[in-house]
């Protein structure tokens, strides 16, 4: 009897243990996170770049006015279209008048300056003329003296020849005749000497006289006739420019200060402000609707990695008539900025598209085949910069074969929006990677796997 009770108690105990086993296993199994797994695949990645761009002017023109004019009114806005003859902005007429007056005064002053320089030029020519005259005078004088010398030498020569011919016939006894001949000879010789001296004096006078004249010329030349000429030309040019400037200002004044458009276009930039003076640049920049166009688009750092000039994009843009144009454009220029972003430009030859129109650009690029590709949502952040995935591995435990997850670090070789090509020592094509889990996983967790 007693044994029966003990047996019954033992039976109850075993039954209780069985019940606990069932409950414990149920609780354990229901507490396990359920994971879905996938295996990596060998695949290539498609990089798609989809951006919005804007049609912009390919060529820009400017409306220029003289600098220094005060702006009274600006009638157009940036992005506004205008037609030929439309008023663009107005210059303050009072200020314009004062500027014209100043221009006039300046012209007058420059003209006076020009006259002074012309006078200086005349003095130089006078000095030169004087020099030439002096040269001529002295040469004349020298010639005269030389002629006198010659006139003096001829009688002497003749007389010497006469004396030479008559010296044998004159003998002793006529000493008075001999004395007269000698005296005459001396006189003739003296005359020749005198003439020679006069010639030397004339030459010396020429020398000294020319020095003086030359100095005068040099003094006149000190003003440098070439500089005078150059300055003259400068002055002339300046006066001419001032006159033209004044002419323009007067024309502007006649138009009451208004600046009109010479052709139709669309304003792209306004470089003037009401109340400020115009700068030495185009006051208004505009583009022609029918001119060259470009499409400009901004790309993110990730998009930029896959782009190079020459990439062919597909563009869709609404045309003026409402229809949508779809064509190919080539990325002609890629301006990379700090931070990795970039701005791209595409030449666009569609005249039916208005400036400022939004365009949709798309580009697809397929890479080479990567050995292991997985979906990006499988990847987790590990630490600060690392990436990892959870892999499922079998392990033998007390409850039999269990599925355990392990965090495996990976290196991402390439990625697009949905897929990533990875590399890891611990991952093969047969490795099961956790695609999703019913709750947050930790390294070493036991899980239930749903294939």
């Amino acid at each position, binding site marked *: 009897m007693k044994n029966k009770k*003990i047996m019954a108690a033992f039976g109850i*105990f075993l039954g209780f*243990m069985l019940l*606990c*086993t069932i409950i*414990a296993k149920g*609780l354990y199994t229901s507490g396990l996170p359920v994971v879905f797994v996938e295996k990596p695949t060998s695949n290539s990645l498609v990089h798609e770049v989809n951006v919005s761009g804007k049609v912009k002017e390919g060529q820009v023109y400017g409306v220029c006015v003289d600098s220094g004019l005060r702006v009274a009114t600006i009638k157009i806005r940036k992005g506004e279209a205008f037609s030929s003859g439309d008023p663009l902005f107005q210059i303050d007429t009072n200020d314009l008048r004062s500027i014209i007056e100043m221009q006039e005064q300046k012209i007058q002053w420059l003209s006076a300056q020009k006259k002074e320089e012309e006078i200086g030029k005349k003095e130089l020519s006078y000095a030169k003329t004087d020099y030439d005259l002096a040269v001529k005078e002295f040469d004349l004088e020298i010639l005269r003296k030389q002629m006198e010398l010659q006139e003096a030498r001829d009688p002497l020569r003749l007389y010497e020849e006469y004396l030479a011919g008559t010296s044998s016939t004159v003998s002793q006894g006529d000493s008075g005749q001999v004395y007269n001949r000698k005296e005459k000879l001396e006189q003739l010789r003296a005359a020749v000497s005198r003439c020679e001296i006069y010639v030397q004096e004339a030459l010396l006078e020429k020398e000294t006289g020319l020095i003086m004249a030359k100095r005068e010329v040099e003094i006149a030349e000190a003003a440098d006739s070439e500089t005078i000429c150059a300055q003259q030309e400068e002055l002339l040019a300046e006066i001419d420019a001032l006159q033209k400037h004044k002419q323009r200002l007067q024309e502007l004044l006649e138009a009451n200060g208004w600046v009109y458009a010479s052709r139709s276009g669309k304003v792209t930039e306004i470089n003037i402000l009401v109340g400020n003076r115009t700068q030495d640049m185009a006051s208004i920049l505009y583009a022609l609707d029918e001119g060259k166009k470009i499409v400009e688009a901004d790309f993110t750092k990730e998009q930029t990695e896959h782009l190079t000039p020459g990439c062919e994009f597909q563009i869709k843009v609404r045309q003026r008539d409402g229809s949508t144009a779809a064509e190919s454009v080539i990325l002609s220029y890629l301006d990379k900025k700090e931070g990795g972003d970039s701005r791209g430009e595409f030449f666009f030859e569609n005249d039916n598209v208005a400036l400022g129109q939004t365009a949709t650009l798309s580009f697809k690029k397929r890479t080479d085949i990567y050995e292991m590709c997985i979906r990006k949502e499988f990847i987790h952040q590990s630490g600060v910069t690392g990436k990892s995935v959870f892999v499922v591995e079998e392990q*033998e435990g*007390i*409850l039999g074969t269990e599925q355990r997850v392990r965090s495996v670090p990976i290196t991402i070789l390439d990625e697009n929006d949905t897929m990533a090509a990875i590399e890891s020592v611990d991952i093969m094509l047969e490795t099961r990677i956790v695609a999703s889990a019913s709750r947050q996983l930790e390294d070493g967790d036991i899980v239930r796997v749903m294939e």
Partner: protein
Amino acid sequence: MWRNRKRLMQDVFKNLQFIVVVGLGISFCIPVIMLLCGSLVDEIEWAERIGPMILDNEQYIEWNWIPDYPTLVNFKELLFFRPQFLTLFWNSIGMVLLILVGQLVVGLPGAWSFAVYHFKGKRILFSLYVILMILPFQVTMLSKYLVLCRLGLMNTGWAVILPAVYSTFPVFLFYRGFCGLKREILEAARMDGASEWRIFWEMGIPLAKGGILSALVLSFLECWNMMEEPMAFLKDKSLWPLSLYLPEIGIEQAGMACCASIITLTVSLFIFVLFKDYLEMGIVSSALNESALIKREK
């Protein structure tokens, strides 16, 4: 007066004996009581008690026989949230049952033949049995390993069950039980025309029930607590018996370890309580048989 004094002395001595024996008995039970108390202590209180031992800071641990905050959280955790423990519990139950059945199937006929029949080489064979019985596991481990490997039974449950089934210890105990049977009864049955199988099955086993059950109880206790064989021959944790789970529980979960020990002990306790009469009977009868055997041989 001298008689009264003698009686008094005897009473005092008896009481003293009683106190000493009871004290000793209680002291033998102290580990079990500690297990029971420890199983009702939660983690925080355990940390306070045995913290000095874990931290190794040369302080003494504290032990309260009655927990400050008794709780059943360890039992709840072990019984409802540790399927591993329960799996190994049933592994142990299954293994032990199969071992006992195997021992009955294999050991009983062997012991019967040793006890009842006389054949050439019986003494030598029995001596061999005795020698094998006293050899520790470490000595026979290698030979068992090689045989199991050759049979392809390594890392299976049979690697633990079969060597235990063919253990010589239960044969010895069964033999002792069968030795207590009167030869005359068996002879009488033979003369009545009963077959040897019938004598064994209908007379030998029922008459030696006490010895058989005591052998089974001892075998159960031995197999329930075995550690070396599973550790050596079982690599898969799913095949382990319960005795190998307890070392897996760390010191940080001392409460749960006490709880697991209590539950492990409970099964042995049930078996012991159920069959203690037979165990006592078996021990007594083996002692009597021993003296009878000696007398017979003399």
